[in-house]
């Protein structure tokens, strides 16, 4: 099978665009990704479009109505917060399978403000605040407190994740926010669900990101290899059965399963990775994924953040984009925005936040329910 390469990729600056439609927001990054490699919509043989909020709304086709209706097959994808990664993976798979030589993947989302999850009941009475909480900050607080129970991880250690990612975002002009948040600011922010304060929750934003994927032969034919980034591994998992998963959505075992498969597919291990964009939907979640992705042993994640190993300039920089915590988290776009970030570093084009000498990077997203998507990318 031919290798598949990212030849064009981009994202819009995340923000709030209530005056635009979802297809309009998606069209922007689609055109930017095409421009990034100098191709046109006429060169695309298929479109894989990820969006959650209008999952039944044919977003991909409506986006083509904005940028060029060429009659290509369109697959609309919805997979919770793994939606963008799933759309990218479907695009990758179509090239790997030899169906197409050049395809487009787009992730797009338009979000409201406020709490996600835990909404009203279809029948009977609302259960929120009666049978615990189903809000996302609470669910991920409970996942973090499981780590506290096992290893003694502290509120301060969780908060340090947010300090780090907000610092990183000051160097990313495409992030929603570019604001330093010192430790005391993070810890004294409004408590949402202990131990997650408001600054430890990802930002609901509108955004889109897109990637053009080519077969190796096509990329060579088009003369696009100099900035092309190889997809070394693409893995998608669902959550295997766990004893508590009916009451505690499990983001750990699906990540561990995906990481093991991705490292095997790429023929490398966590020590070979130069940077990681992982799913920091809440500060508590990032701590869990240091261990889930094998960056350290079980129980060592608190030390990793304390020692600065995961900061820019550290042993294995994590979320140098600012992460979902500060760059923002437009659900369906996040999986491709992460791929944009890693690709930009591997190309050596990340400016002030560039991870020096980065050659191999990993992206990770989790869709609660659950889905985990991992990609390993390499500049050859």
């Amino acid at each position, binding site marked *: 099978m031919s290798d598949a390469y990212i030849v064009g990729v981009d994202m819009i600056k995340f923000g709030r665009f209530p005056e635009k439609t979802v297809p309009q927001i998606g069209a922007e990054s689609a055109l930017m990704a095409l421009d990034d490699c100098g191709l046109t919509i006429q060169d695309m043989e298929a479109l894989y479009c990820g969006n959650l909020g209008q999952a039944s709304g044919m977003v991909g086709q409506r986006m083509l109505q904005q940028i060029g209706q060429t009659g290509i097959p369109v697959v609309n994808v919805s997979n919770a917060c793994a939606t963008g990664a799933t759309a990218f993976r479907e695009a990758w798979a179509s090239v790997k399978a030899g169906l197409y030589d050049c395809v487009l993947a787009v992730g797009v989302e338009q979000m409201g403000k406020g709490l996600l999850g835990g909404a009203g009941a279809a*029948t009977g009475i*609302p259960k929120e605040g*009666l049978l*615990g909480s189903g809000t996302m900050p609470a669910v991920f607080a409970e996942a973090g407190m499981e780590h506290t129970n096992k290893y003694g991880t502290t509120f301060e250690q969780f908060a340090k994740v947010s300090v780090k990612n907000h610092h990183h975002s000051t160097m990313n002009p495409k992030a929603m926010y570019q604001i330093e948040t010192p430790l005391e600011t993070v810890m004294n922010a409004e408590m949402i*669900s202990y*131990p997650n304060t408001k600054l430890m929750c990802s930002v609901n934003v509108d955004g889109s990101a897109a990637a053009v994927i080519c077969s190796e032969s096509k990329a060579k034919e088009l003369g696009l290899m100099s900035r092309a980034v190889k997809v070394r591994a693409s893995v998608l998992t669902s959550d295997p059965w766990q004893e508590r998963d009916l*009451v505690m959505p499990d983001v750990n075992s699906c990540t561990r399963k995906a990481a093991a498969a991705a490292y095997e597919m790429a023929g490398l291990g966590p020590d070979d990775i130069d940077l990681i964009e992982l799913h920091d939907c809440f500060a508590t979640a990032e701590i869990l994924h240091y261990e889930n992705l094998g960056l350290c042993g079980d129980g060592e994640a608190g030390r990793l953040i304390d020692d600065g190993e995961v900061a820019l300039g550290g042993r294995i920089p994590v979320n140098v984009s600012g992460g979902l915590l500060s760059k923002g988290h437009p659900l369906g776009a996040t999986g491709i925005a992460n791929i944009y970030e890693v690709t930009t570093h591997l190309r050596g084009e990340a400016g002030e936040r560039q991870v020096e000498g980065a050659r191999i990077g990993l992206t990770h997203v989790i869709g609660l329910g659950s889905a985990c998507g991992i990609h390993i990318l390499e500049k050859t």
Partner: protein
Amino acid sequence: MSEQPLPVVEYLKVPENGDPYLEGYKCDACGATFLGERSVCSKCGARDQMSTVTLPNSGKLYSYCIVHRSFPGIDVPYISAIVDLDDGTAIKGNLINIEPDPEQIEFGMAVDVVFDDALGRKDKEGNSYLSYFFQPANG
């Protein structure tokens, strides 16, 4: 409108005579337990091996968070808790009768399942509901 309070979830049983209780489904093939009716085991895939079990009214606190921001009309702060019942079944609910303060809450603490009115919440028909809660075990 029902004379008796209705159960807040289907796995809470309210017999006409006798005390309310939580009911689980247990796979006779692999032993996994579930909240809510099912015919196929999602752990081992066995079909038609499910039988109902009465869940114990005691367990240990496995994880929790303290909810300070919720939806309008919901009293905060409160403790959202994950409890491992004594038979291993995991269940989620509010932990009550303890300060919502991490200094006061200990992982592994023994808790009892208690049954009470669902915080005064009623459905559109005006029916009252019975819910379950966790509280620190006595003694």
